[in-house]
């Protein structure tokens, strides 16, 4: 298939942005990620697309600094990532908010670390401002458990944005939402990403979501997780959902699904091979 404009891995290098080189990660001796080479430019919207269990969440944890690589390096703007930092905000799938704090308190707690020079009333106003931006202006005193999954994720996005982090790391943030809420939040995210422009790394297993959101899609294969292909998404912004019926869009998503199918077949072949060797 030549429909996809494939990029050479690591073809665009600069010191700005996130740089991943020869990354290896193993969990208790089992390789999870191998030979990941990736450059994420400042202001880029990158989607990491892969089937369940391919290590895409692990990749995000490594970028966040929650785990450290077994081998290889990850750096941001030239500085090696050794742990979590407020310059890289994280939105988890469904647990970014502490259930014992209101939406506003959740954001205020985060702000007390990112903006220690400001007082409580400034933090409250700032939290209210960002909650309003994500459409939760009236729910700032609510506890997360009383809100729908979609509203909780809006709150999580508000928290990440309020910190003012130049990089946003998102781990399947809309994975647990119904299709209508997911579409709404995708559009909200694109709107918020545009100004002020941030670098976004967005993990998903949804091909359409990746193609709709991203400048570039990195396709991961499994066992161990590795990059199968990088795809520059050719569609103009601002995008609309009419895109889903374009021939080019359909071809591209067909191409990615074909990559996944090949990857699964390869893995089954490898598994039966090793089973034969063992017996």
């Amino acid at each position, binding site marked *: 298939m030549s429909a996809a404009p494939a990029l050479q891995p690591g073809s665009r290098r600069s010191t700005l942005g996130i740089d991943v080189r020869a990354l290896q990660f193993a969990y208790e001796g089992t390789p999870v990620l191998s030979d990941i080479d990736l450059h994420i430019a400042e202001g880029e919207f990158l989607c990491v697309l892969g089937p369940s269990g391919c290590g895409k969440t692990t990749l995000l944890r490594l970028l*966040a600094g929650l785990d450290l690589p077994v081998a290889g390096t990850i750096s941001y703007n030239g500085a090696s990532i050794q742990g*979590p930092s407020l310059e890289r905000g994280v939105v988890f799938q469904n*647990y970014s908010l502490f259930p014992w704090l209101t939406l506003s308190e959740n954001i205020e*707690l985060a702000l007390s*670390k990112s903006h220690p020079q400001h007082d409580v009333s400034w933090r409250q106003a700032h939290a209210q401002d960002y909650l309003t931006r994500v459409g939760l202006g009236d729910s700032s005193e609510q506890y997360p*458990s009383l809100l729908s999954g979609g509203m909780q994720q809006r709150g999580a996005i508000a928290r990440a944005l309020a910190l003012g982090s130049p990089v946003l790391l998102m781990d399947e943030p809309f994975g647990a939402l119904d299709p209508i809420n997911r579409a709404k939040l995708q559009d909200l995210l694109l709107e918020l990403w545009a100004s002020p422009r941030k670098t976004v790394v967005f993990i998903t297993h949804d091909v359409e979501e990746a193609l709709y959101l991203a400048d570039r899609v990195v396709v991961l294969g499994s066992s161990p997780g590795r990059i199968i292909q990088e795809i520059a998404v050719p569609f103009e912004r601002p995008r609309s959902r009419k895109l889903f019926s374009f021939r080019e869009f359909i071809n591209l998503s067909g191409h990615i699904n074909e990559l996944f199918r090949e990857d699964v077949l390869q893995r089954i072949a490898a598994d039966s091979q090793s089973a034969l060797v063992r017996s």
Partner: protein
Amino acid sequence: MASFGNQSNPAVVSTFSAASQLPVPDVGIAIAPSVYWPKALRLQGKEGVLFIAGVILLWQLISSFSHFSGKYLFPSPLLTAQTLWVSLPELLIGTVYSFLILLPSLAFAISLGVVWGLIVGTTPALNRMFSPFARFASPVPPTIYIPYAIALLPTFHTAAGFVVFIGVFWPVFLNTANGAGALPQHYRDNARVLGLAKVEYLRRVVFPATLPQIFSGINVGLVFAFIMLTVAELFGASKGLGRFVQLYADYADYPRMVAGILYTGVVVWISMEVLERIKKRSLFWLR
């Protein structure tokens, strides 16, 4: 008997008042509950009160038919109630004395158990250091310390306070440390992402996340506190709930003694209810 008409047909589920309240296992076979009320009597939900009424009735029967005891060794409910009313001022003063020992010890044991439990539970090195000692010291029945505490400490007040402290500290500490040690990873990740410092992390994340376990520790601790306190008072108090019971046992005034036991039961029950309210309010976010 029209109102009992449904009894003949146990398959009519709506007549099983118990079915809506008890978790009857669904095994695909109709299970007839062993007890059910005719609808017309409107007794559903009042089973607890009925049982207590039954106990009082039985008590009345036994006390009025017992030849061996006489009414002073096994006082009737009515006599006990009268005695309770008469002794109420003395009992209330005794309650104040008991609570003057109980509350400071309870507060101190809970604070120390929670703080130390949070720190030990989240610090592997401290955990390795303290756990072997805790495993040895915590199962010692705290009542065993009472005679020595009374001998060792200058006043009865401090001795009783000390044994109450021991009884409360261990369950609170162990539950807190276990809860904090088993903190779900996503809370830890979330706190790390925000860059919370250790004290903030303990106060704003680990403490609230561990509250369910802390409350089960306090629950056990409160029961222990009353046991320790009343047992200590049997040994050597001048006033207090346990002392009241012991005093009138020595005088062979059994109506007063039974009244004292009943009253103590009520005090413990109210204390547990208060704790339950506090727990419900604190854990509002748990769903």
